[in-house]
């Protein structure tokens, strides 16, 4: 579909449900507007650290072009190989393990073009790495699940990719000591590209100038007092994380933002039916969940946490504590008074 066609489509339909790559089925299994045709890089100047592309462009396509110039999207977009699109990544507000060092998708979107509930084109933000003019409409779309409009074009900030990577995996005695080790590292001044905890394993990725990696890995192990396993060619390790290859196919997959101090109570509640992978120093749990999502909803509510279902059967994808309140209502009234895009 062209932009014009999307405008017409919105004007003539009472409900508009968008699908990008379809990699997050809970968010897009019922869709009447496919975005894959709205695809392609529009502008990319490596020396500016920015690019602009149509929203239906696959992230993998972008990643490849960036890699040819030694650059990358540091927030490590999930479902890359599965076919996630730029628009879907922003709408779902998803970042991967690599968000540890420089921030998530919200920290890298610079500009947006979208079509609101009336079919009007709106632009916000600026195509340069720094801009403070006007309201931050690009950020508002992050995690909004397309409820403010159909995202058609996005500008991102990119960074030079590290010249080399290495991964250090630490096997701890218990999940508890793994979390303690994570906390110790998170408060340290080591520059870590990823800091995940998976069961009783701590997974650390570093990147940079190749001949400094060896000493840096040694220093890390000295600091935590555990000898770990070092992998130099670590692509596979992080692909497994990024693509959620560790999640069993029939389980639900839920994103739960939290802080490290809340992990023990969450773990106690989900013990029987859940398995978690914590990324970014315990700021986010990816939960593999085999019980009903209604039950998870209650658990999260009790813990005053919120969750977003990416895979799984649920009438409501936002679980637990609801966010946004009256401000959300007012923003929705601005861009979609009739609630055509209402996803939940």
């Amino acid at each position: 579909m062209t932009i014009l066609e999307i405008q017409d489509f919105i004007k003539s339909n009472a409900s508009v449900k968008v699908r990008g790559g379809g990699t997050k089925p809970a968010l897009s299994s019922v869709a009447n507007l496919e975005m894959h045709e709205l695809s392609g890089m529009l502008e990319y100047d490596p020396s500016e650290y920015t690019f602009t592309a149509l929203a239906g462009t696959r992230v993998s396509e972008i990643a490849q072009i960036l890699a040819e110039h030694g650059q990358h999207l540091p927030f490590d977009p999930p479902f890359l190989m599965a076919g996630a699109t730029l628009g879907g990544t922003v709408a779902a507000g998803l970042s991967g393990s690599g968000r540890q060092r420089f921030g998530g998708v919200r920290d890298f979107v610079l500009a947006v073009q979208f079509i609101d509930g009336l079919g009007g084109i709106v632009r916000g933000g600026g195509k340069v790495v720094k801009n403070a003019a006007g309201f931050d409409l690009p950020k508002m779309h992050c995690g909004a699940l397309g409820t403010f409009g159909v995202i058609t074009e996005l500008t991102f900030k990119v960074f030079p990719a590290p010249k080399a990577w290495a991964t250090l995996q630490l096997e701890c005695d218990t999940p508890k000591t793994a979390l303690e080790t994570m906390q110790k590292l998170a408060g340290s001044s080591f520059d870590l590209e990823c800091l995940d905890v998976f069961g009783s394993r701590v997974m650390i990725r570093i990147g940079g100038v190749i001949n400094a990696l060896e000493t840096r890995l040694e220093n890390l192990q000295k600091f935590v007092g555990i000898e770990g396993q070092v992998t130099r060619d670590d692509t596979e390790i992080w692909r497994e994380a990024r693509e959620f290859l560790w999640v069993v196919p029939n389980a639900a997959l839920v994103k739960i933002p939290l802080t490290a101090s809340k992990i023990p109570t969450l773990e106690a509640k989900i013990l029987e039916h859940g398995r978690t992978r914590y990324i970014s120093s315990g700021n986010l749990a990816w939960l593999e969940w085999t019980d009903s999502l209604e039950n998870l909803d209650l658990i999260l509510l009790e813990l005053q946490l919120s969750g977003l279902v990416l895979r799984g059967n649920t009438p409501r994808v936002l679980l637990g504590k609801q966010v946004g309140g009256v401000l959300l209502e007012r923003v929705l009234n601005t861009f979609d008074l009739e609630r055509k895009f209402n996803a939940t």
Partner: protein
Amino acid sequence: MTEPATILTDLRRVLGEARVMVKAAQLAAYESDALTSFKARALAVVMPETELEVIEVVKICHKHRVPFVARGSGTSLSGGSLPVADGVVIALNKLNKILKLDPLERVAVVQPGVTNLAVSTAAAPFGLYYAPDPSSQQICTIGGNVAFNSGGAHCLKYGMTSNHVLGLKVLLPDGEVLTLGGSSLESVGADLHGLFVGSEGLFGIALEVTLRLLPKPQRYRTVLAAYHSLEAAGEAVASVVSSGLLPGAMEIMDALAIQAAEAAVHAGYPKDAAALLIVELEGEDRAIEAEFLELERVIRASGAYEVRIAQSELERLTIWKGRKSAFSAVGRLSPDYIVQDGVVPRGKLGLALKEIERLSGVAGLRVANVFHAGDGNLHPLILFDGREPGALEKAEHLAGEILGLCVKLGGSITGEHGVGVEKREHMPIMFSSSDLDAMKRLRLSIDPLELSNPGKMFPSGEAPALVSHAPHPLERAGVITRE
């Protein structure tokens, strides 16, 4: 609007006599912010001391339909905290408590009147700091930083204020209080704390801000390079960028700015330089050592006629002292000056500087340039003598031309100082009328009476935006009607 006397009575009921200031001498101190060419006298300046008092004040303003302006330290350079004539200024400096500082989770929860530097100072004993570092950090407040999404010299790598605000408690213009975000770096649902940051006080008042703290870098390595031309310094920036290094800061100063900084703080800068470039790497010891070798190679190959490497923390701070004092230092060269703030794509820096030089020649006004070269954020300082008739207008005109140039080159009219009053007329060169209309609709949906900081951000000549383009669902259902 209600009779002023009634409003004042209500305000005094909440704050007492002393904290509702109405005397001419008291109001005069709040007539402008750091952009002194605009002045307006408020009906009253109030000094709440608690969150509850702020809420009460806003409710009173709402009840009486009185516009209000939140104010931190008034260091805005775009007229953002300029009072609305006969409105209320809510000075937030007394809400200056750090409510929580959690070294384990690395977050601080602060009241809006806490100064930027106070956060880093409080975090320092734990080896942590608050990253955004506006040059005004000793006095500007977190509330002001939030309103303007303020930046600083070290924002290339770790971002501006919005990248460090995790959560907010906000007071909407009708007195509603709600929390946005939280203390996690991640969230689900629309990123409304991201939307609030940078809204220039038009969406209400930030009552409480949850900030992310970072562990202090193990090491800084700072280099100062002197060039015979601005272009050469600009090209050096391009070489650093294409080398794949990611410095924490890259700053350029031109000859006039160097002279001024030298006269003011004696940083020991090479005085005959046409341009100085400061590049700083920060991070893990070993990584920085290796990267610095590469940086040094790039800088030495860039045509610098003098390269100085800071050998101690003292030398590093001396290098920065000159840069950080540049604005006020330039102020000594001239009775008056305007600090501009535009952004160009980094690759167009050289072109932009040449064009600014030409425009400055045509206008017959001196322009000093200080800028965050890493993000293409220019700060031309336009010098003029306000006592000369027409000089201010000439300077404003030149400033406008420079902003037009920035947008023409693909950039922005502001990188960090905000639109405020000063740049509102320039918004249409950056945004189409439908984009502006969408933003205006958003503003009106959040603040239908336009009580919170009116007169800012939007061009004044704009026809009033339509509040609603389609009937409200309740209207369609016949529950409400439009008169």
